[in-house]
């Protein structure tokens, strides 16, 4: 089995910054990512877009173009970067199994940095399983990776900065949405107002948001604010979005509907390792418990970037460097005084990045009927389990997500609860009248994604000393 000082999972801003830092300190680094190119979610496809697709590069904006620096640093650093590698198992003795080009292989590392980023929060509303309904992130992926924009009417619905950013990007691409249906309640503006002074310290993000709103308003994109009761219409594909607005029910015809309610940490790997997790009430998600150096409660395992709590791409990069410094120190490649000296300005930059979060978290808090959908709404897309059946199971004595699994099979499908994990936990907590920390989360088991049996057999043969 191969071995390395450090294995990093995820080649987004956090993983790339950490790889650069650790390679500079002389550590041997293996960087694994399921995607074919570096960049993670924010900088997805950056190398190809920069080299080949000038128009796409300019309409994606300068925040996206900034990713080229990190990608270039990777190509110049002595890092064993293995694209197209899907990590499907990690054990506490830091043996990592991953699948690459149809073959599974093992790797032993002295330290593991998980930089697997965020997932979009699921938006379980009636009709969300119909073809044509996608996440806003999915629509952005089509734009970044494949240069595609909708050529049929599109509605963007929900809330959050990413929704507005995509609307601006599509507008610049000549494919503006037919409408934006925003779910931010009026009272959220009032509660968010008190966070404005602090957020002004991170004024750049605020200015950016203002610019997006101005651009969209100027272009005359229809914008419905304070909407509730969203419902996708259609029988075997989406044909429109219905919602309540200003005391009336409106319907907008659309073949593509982009939903968004922010992003949440991807905890599959930290759950698999059984790291301790805490419920974050302001971001309404679980995140791994981390110390000042971003180490988890499992020895040798750290987390950098949005996988440890949502603070955005710039913070992810600083966290990658910070975690990298500490791992270099633990590998005896950096004295503690030097580590602390280099870390000080990074901590200051991180603190600045965080100032805007309370404002965003308050303003864009997902509405209650997205967190805990109505009885008829399918929550587990794989096994088609509705919210009502989960509530019924709780009344029959099911007390947590793992019991719900055996009662109803929810979370047993190929997605392993990546989609339904949070809503299932929220519904159980509400029905039982207890805290999310008491309800917990699905137990995650390997493989993280379905693997062909053939591939597992191949791995067993590789590891058989008799061969």
């Amino acid at each position, binding site marked *: 089995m191969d071995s390395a000082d450090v294995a990093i999972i995820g080649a987004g801003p956090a993983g790339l910054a950490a790889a650069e830092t650790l390679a500079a300190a002389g550590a041997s680094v293996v960087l694994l990512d*399921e995607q*074919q190119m570096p960049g993670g*979610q924010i900088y997805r496809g950056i190398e*190809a877009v920069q080299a*080949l*697709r*000038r*128009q*796409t590069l300019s*309409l994606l904006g300068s925040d996206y173009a900034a990713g080229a620096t990190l990608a270039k640093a990777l190509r110049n650093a002595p890092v064993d970067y293995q694209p197209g590698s*899907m990590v499907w198992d990690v054990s506490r003795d830091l043996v990592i199994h991953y699948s690459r080009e149809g073959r599974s292989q093992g790797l032993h590392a002295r330290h593991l940095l998980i930089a697997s980023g965020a*997932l*979009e929060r699921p938006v379980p509303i009636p009709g*969300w*399983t*119909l*073809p*044509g*309904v*996608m*996440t806003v*992130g*999915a629509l952005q*992926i*089509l*734009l970044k*990776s*494949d*240069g*595609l*924009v*909708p*050529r*049929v009417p599109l509605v963007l619905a929900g809330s959050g900065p990413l929704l507005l950013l995509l609307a601006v990007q599509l507008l610049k*691409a*000549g494919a503006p949405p037919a409408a934006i249906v925003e779910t931010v309640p009026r009272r959220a503006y009032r509660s968010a107002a008190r966070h404005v002074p602090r957020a002004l310290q991170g004024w750049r993000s605020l200015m950016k948001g203002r610019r997006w709103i101005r651009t969209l308003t100027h272009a005359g994109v229809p914008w419905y604010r304070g909407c509730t009761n969203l419902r996708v219409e259609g029988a*075997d*594909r989406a044909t429109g979005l219905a919602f309540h607005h200003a005391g009336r029910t409106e319907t907008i015809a659309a*073949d*593509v509907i982009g939903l968004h309610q922010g992003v949440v940490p991807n905890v599959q790997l930290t759950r698999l390792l059984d790291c301790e997790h805490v419920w974050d009430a302001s971001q309404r998600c679980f995140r791994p418990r981390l110390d000042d150096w971003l180490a988890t409660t499992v020895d040798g395992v750290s987390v950098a970037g949005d996988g440890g709590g949502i603070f955005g791409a710039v913070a992810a990069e600083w966290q990658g460097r910070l975690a990298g410094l500490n791992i270099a120190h633990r590998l005896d490649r950096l004295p503690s005084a030097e580590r602390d000296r280099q870390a000080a300005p990074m901590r200051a930059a991180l603190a600045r990045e965080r100032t805007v979060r309370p404002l965003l978290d308050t303003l864009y808090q997902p509405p209650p009927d997205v967190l805990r959908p109505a009885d008829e709404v399918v929550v587990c*897309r*794989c*096994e*088609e389990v509705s919210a009502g059946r989960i509530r019924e199971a709780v009344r029959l004595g099911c007390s947590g997500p793992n019991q719900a699994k055996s009662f109803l099979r929810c979370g047993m*499908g*190929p*997605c392993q609860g*990546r*989609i339904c994990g949070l809503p299932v936990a929220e519904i159980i907590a509400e029905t039982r009248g207890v805290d999310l920390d008491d309800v917990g989360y699905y137990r995650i*088991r*390997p*493989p993280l*994604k*379905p*693997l*062909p*049996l053939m591939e*597992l057999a191949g791995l067993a043969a590789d590891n058989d000393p008799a061969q």
Partner: protein
Amino acid sequence: MFRRIDDAVRPAGITIWFEGQSLHAQAGDSLAAALLIHDAGAFRTTPVSGAPRAPYCLMGVCFDCLVEVDGVPNRQACMIEVRDGMQVRRQHGPAGVADDG
């Protein structure tokens, strides 16, 4: 449902097959993107109710893009690139998960 932005450089055109029909694609496209351009409709039907599904997340999370590629089922169309001559079929029924142990 989708169209390409007019970028200056165009990679090579290739042909893939979906349910026996030939479709034009570009090298570097994800399989999901190539199918979405051609309005391929449902990518799979669910094992429980037979409901039609198409990509939701495009980042490997939801598994609603599962198709059969060159006879191998359970492939995530959003995570693989097109290859010339690729044979693709809708997936019906359960996704085989190798976690029975």
